Structures are given as C-alpha cells and as structure tokens.
C-alpha cells in the first residue's frame, strides 16, 4: 500500500515541526510515506467562506496530486472532511481520492493499530486536555460526540493512552468547539475569541498541563489566545506526543527540540 502525506498550507508554513513529527512517526511505524508536491491546499477555506467554485481548482490540484496513492493521510481533521465530502463532485478520480483520504489519528487507530503505536514507547507524563477538532469528531467519527447516544469510544484517547505517564484532564465541556471555524475567526472575531477563551478556562479549571489536538488550526487559535492572555500552556498535535526525534521523556525537552527548529529570537519580533 503506498501512502502519501498531505500537510495543509498553514502547517507547512507555520508549524513545520508538527509535519516533521507526523512524518517521523509514520516512518518509525515502518510506513514509507511520500510527500508529493503539487498541492498546497485542499480548498477548504474559500469553500467554507462560500466560494466553493473558486476552490474547485485547488481541490482539483489535490485530487490529481494524490490520485496515484492508495492512502492519503491528512494532517488535519477539517481538511480530511472537506476532501471526503467534496472531492467526489469533481468526478470519478475525485470520488476515489475522497474515499482513500483519511486523517492521521484515524489512520493510526484504524489501520496501523494501537499495539504498533504503543511499541514506539512514547512518554509524556503530563495531565493532558484533549481537543478533537469538530470536523474530525463529528465529520470523521474519531470519537462518539457527547450529543449522540451509544457506546462511548474515542480513538484519540486510545492513541494517547499508549503514551507512558500521560493522564487526562476531564473537562466540563469535552467537545465544545474552540471557535476557530476557519474564516469565522476573522469574520466573527469577538465570538471566536470568547469561545477559545472559554476552552482555556475549562483547561485551567481542570489543571490541564498541556493541550493535545488533532487539528493545528485549533491549536493556532487557542495558542494565540493563550499567548495574548499570558497563559503558558503547551499546545501540541497528537503526532508530537506520539513521536519524538529522541523519544523524549518530558515536555521541556519537547520545547527545546521544537525551538531548535526556529532561529534565535530577535528582540523585535518572533515569539514571546
């Protein structure tokens, strides 16, 4: 089975360490992963803003880039849902790519298996607040959402459960939206920020020491709010917790490796 990885544009540009971790994780699991050029974006942002037609070209480039692969692993729940929901409207090739597209955690849980993931021996002895992005949750079925009745399951928790020392912060609202919502973040900034700050309050009230999510877009939003509010709360993608270059035992080291990817800080700009 040949597998390709899709790294969304904002992850590629602003969170390369997450993509590096995802790639390293998949390779450590013995999977050969191609990262083809030719598609920087799945087209979700303009489509959700109402410009589905304009996004078709972008989605078409995604389809032709990923058509040769048996599996397309996407480093974003919302991008995966967008491709799965809409690529089929572009024809047979699109339908095939849609069907083969999945998100990283779903892929790891369903096709790689927890035993293999556990064998990586990851360690992260922290109390973690899990944020499954809404599209990953309700669009891809990564967990049973609290609205629906039925046997509880949570693929993300199951994956994180293989990590040594990791415990979970039980939140008041385990699956309320963080408020990013793509262009919603700038179209309705007041509500967007309020929703994110309320998530941060929930994490604080339950002594979360880190936030782990399936979606970097959510982390970007929550992280930006936390930084502005002077809240120090590490925000990590699931891939970063499951894998590290050196199999680190604590998050300070994780920070160090991540910051080693960034140039030395100048006093004028860059991170706080």
């Amino acid at each position: 089975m040949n597998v390709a990885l899709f790294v969304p544009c904002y992850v590629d540009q602003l969170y390369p360490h997450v993509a590096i971790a995802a790639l390293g994780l998949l390779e450590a699991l013995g999977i050969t992963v191609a990262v083809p050029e030719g598609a920087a974006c799945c087209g979700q942002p303009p489509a959700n803003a109402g410009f589905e037609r304009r996004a078709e070209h972008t989605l078409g480039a995604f389809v032709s880039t990923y058509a040769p692969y048996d599996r397309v692993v996407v480093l974003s729940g919302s991008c995966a849902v967008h491709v799965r929901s809409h690529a089929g409207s572009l024809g047979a090739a699109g339908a095939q790519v849609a069907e083969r597209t999945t998100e990283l955690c779903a892929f790891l849980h369903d096709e790689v298996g927890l035993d293999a993931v556990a064998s990586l021996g990851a360690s992260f002895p922290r109390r973690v607040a899990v944020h499954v992005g809404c599209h990953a949750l309700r669009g891809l079925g990564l967990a049973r959402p609290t609205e629906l009745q039925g046997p509880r399951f949570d693929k993300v928790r199951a994956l994180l459960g293989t990590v040594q020392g990791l415990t979970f912060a039980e939140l008041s609202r385990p699956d309320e939206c963080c408020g990013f919502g793509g262009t919603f973040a700038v179209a309705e900034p007041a509500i967007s920020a309020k929703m994110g700050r309320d998530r941060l309050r929930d994490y604080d009230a339950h002594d979360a020491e880190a936030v782990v999510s399936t979606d970097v877009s959510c982390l970007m939003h929550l992280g930006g709010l936390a930084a502005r509010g002077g809240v120090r709360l590490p925000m990590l993608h699931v891939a970063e917790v499951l894998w590290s270059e050196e199999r680190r035992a604590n998050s300070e080291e994780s920070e160090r490796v991540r910051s080693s990817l960034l140039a030395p800080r100048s006093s004028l700009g860059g991170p706080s």
Partner: protein
Amino acid sequence: MTKRAFELPVLHEPHRADGAVDHAKAAARFTADEARTDWHDGALWWVRAKRDLAAASLDEWEALRELASSIKEHTLSRLDEYLVEFEAAATRNGVTVHWARDADEHNRIVHGILAERGATRLVKSKSMLTEECGLNPYLQARGIEVIDTDLGERIVQLRGEAPSHIVLPAIHLKKEEVGDTFHDHLGTPAGLADPTALTQAAREHLRAKFLAADAALTGVNFAIAETGGLVVCTNEGNADLGMALAPVHVASLGIEKLIPRASDLGVFLRLLTRSATGQPVTVYSSHVHRPRAGQALHVVLVDNGRSTQLAREGFWRSLKCIRCGACMNTCPIYRRSGGHSYGSTVPGPIGSVLTPGLDLERYASLPFASTLCGSCTAVCPVKIDLDAQLYRWRQLVTAAGHASTGKAIAMRGAGLVLARPWLVRALGAAARGAMRVVPRRVMRVAAGAWGRARDLPPAPPQSFRAWYRANRSDRS
C-alpha cells in the same frame, strides 16, 4: 416575500443601515458584557445538559431520531395529500379550515374570524408562526387586545421586545429585569425579583385575561392528518385555559406541522420535550378534535414561503423541524450572542437555514454565524442536516453577490493563490520573514481581526516543504 409590517425593538439591534442583519456586529456588542455572556451561555448549556441526561435515559434514543426523521421526510414527500386528508377529517369534526398563502392573508383571516364575532379580547399561546406573520401588531392596530399568555412571551410583550428563543422566550433576561417590568406594568412592589412571587403575580393577572377573553388563539405542535386533530404541548396550561374558556378558538399552523397518524405521536412526544428542556414530556399534551359545545374552532393552514423551501433540493429537510430549540441550546455561537443578534423570528441554527430563504440579502450573514461544528445536527431530534445546509446557504449567498466586498476580494485572491503551491510557498516565506522582523505591536495591528485577541504563532525560519527537500531529497 413577506416583510413584517412592524419591527419590534430588540435588545441588541442587529440591523445595518441597509436593513441587512449584521450578526457579527450584534454578537460583538453582546459579548462586550462578558459576565452577562457567561451567564447566558451557562443558562443555555444547562438546558443542553438536561437534554443529554434525558437522551441517555432511553436506549432507543437514536432509533427514535431516525424514526422521527423518516416520518417527517415521508410526510413532506406527500404533503399535499396529507393536507387534504387533514382538512377532510377536521371538517367532518365540525372544524372550519382556512388556507393562507402568506402572512398578510393569515392575519386577515384571523382578524376576519374575530371581527365576525365582535371579539376584541384575544388570549394567545405560543406560536412562532404568528410571530413570523406579525399578527400581534396587525390585530392591535385594528383595536383588538392581544395578550401573549406564555409567561416568557408575556414578559417580552410587556417589554416591547421579541422573544429571543423559541421555547424559552425570556432566557436573555435576569429576574431583576422581569421584576422591573412587572413593577411597571402589573404593579408588583419595586425590587421584587423572586421568581415564585413574580409568577404568582403573572398568574393572577393572566387568569383575569383568560376569564375575560372572547377569543383564544393557539399554535399547533402537531396536526394529525388521519384524524383531523391538533396537538398542543405546554407546561403552563396557558393554551388550555384559552381553549377551554373562549367561545372561539383559532389554531394557526405552518403546513409542515402535519404528521400522518395519531400513533406517530408516540415517537414525537417522546423526543420533543426531552430535546427541548430535558423533561420526559410537557405537563400538558392536549389533543383537540372537536370544539366544545357552543364553541367555534377554526384552523388556519399557512404557507408563507414553506412550499418554496420545500422545492429547494438542498434545504427542504429544514421543514422537518418540530421547534424544540435544542439546536439553539447547543450552539456555542447562539449561547454567546443571544437570539436577538440573528434579527429573525426563529434564531440559532434552524433560523439560519429557514430565514435566508425568505430574503437572502437581508439575512446573508446568518449562515456565517457558525463554525460548522455540527453540534446542532447531532442534537436535532429529526436529524436535519443543519451544518450541511449552512454550508450550502453560504454558496448561495456568495453566488448572489451578497458576500461582503472585502471577503469576496480576499477569497478571490485566496482561490488564486491556494491553487498554486509555488505561490503559497513564496508568499508563506515572505510572511514568515516579515513576522520575524516586524515588531509584535505592529504585527498585531497588521494581523487585523485575528490580531485583536490573538497572538500570531511564532514564525519558523523554514517551512516543512523546505525541510523535506533539504532532509529527504532522495525521496521527493
């Protein structure tokens, strides 16, 4: 399209100068009072939590939702037949059935019924349809006293406001505010804010109205095609007090309220109140088939845009709605912006898929008052694909040219860039470069709406793609 002849003032005026609703602006004003937003959000989340407990108490909850959805979809697919069946059965029962194409026709019919009998004192129970038609001001302008008898509706009526929620009309008000309103209008002591005492005052005030009424108007939760019956659900008993005393009872309903058989009520009555408030059923579920001796019973079947919505391939399923309000209670945006910020009779997620069909330009912002999180779809007892319909309305809004100019230009640009990976990389590198040298203060402003409340992420020197090329060049 029927515009309301009279707009009731609302707490947070959401309309722009050109008449279009600006949800974002109204929402920003609502959230400016953070403590009050937390209170409003908490109150509605609590109702959502009660709904969850009720749903969890039934192993067959999801099966019931599927049944309810199927019954409604079937009914809508044969709606004309069921309307004819209902009319025949009701007529045989001594009910007079009227048909109204739009809001104005509905209002004229209702007024005609009252005028014919010389009725001037009308008591009304909850009917979102009559809100939609602007019935109250229409009748009041013609000398008829209209008293909304649902406690929450009476409160907002006395305040001259629109209800902010279809089930909990006064959810946006604190008890002190209700106390002030009752002091002004009912003569309760200044400063009295105890809910029990205030409710008692309303009880006495409204009892006098029920006993003096010469007409009663109710909404209808479900109309049974097979028997010609009407089902009205309340906790307060206000609809019943109206119907049981007045010499004329008018029941107004949208044509989508039909269900085929009485036995279908087993499904809907098990879902409705659990979804709405978490109770297993409303205190009263009244089934009306024939008028009381000496009473006239009139039913008004109203279209007002429903047949147009039925014809919309991507949106007709919104007509399955049984008006439970669960979507509002779960919506993180509704809870933090309040019903008035939608500027529509029905607010929240269902309002945002029903209302744009009435006037796309006026309500263009409503489908965007959402992160498409999908929680509404997951709680809807009749499984309306609310988030998918919101997405579809967005496409129609932009296609009709109602997207804000800034957004249209930005998205045209985005479309051009995102299809070209080399351009994304070039712009990305340039942006990252800028982020690393430009002072944070300036970046915050340059980041526009993002930067008002959030920091930008730290800018790495190298994109993943560049790293990949440098470190995995043998595999690219």
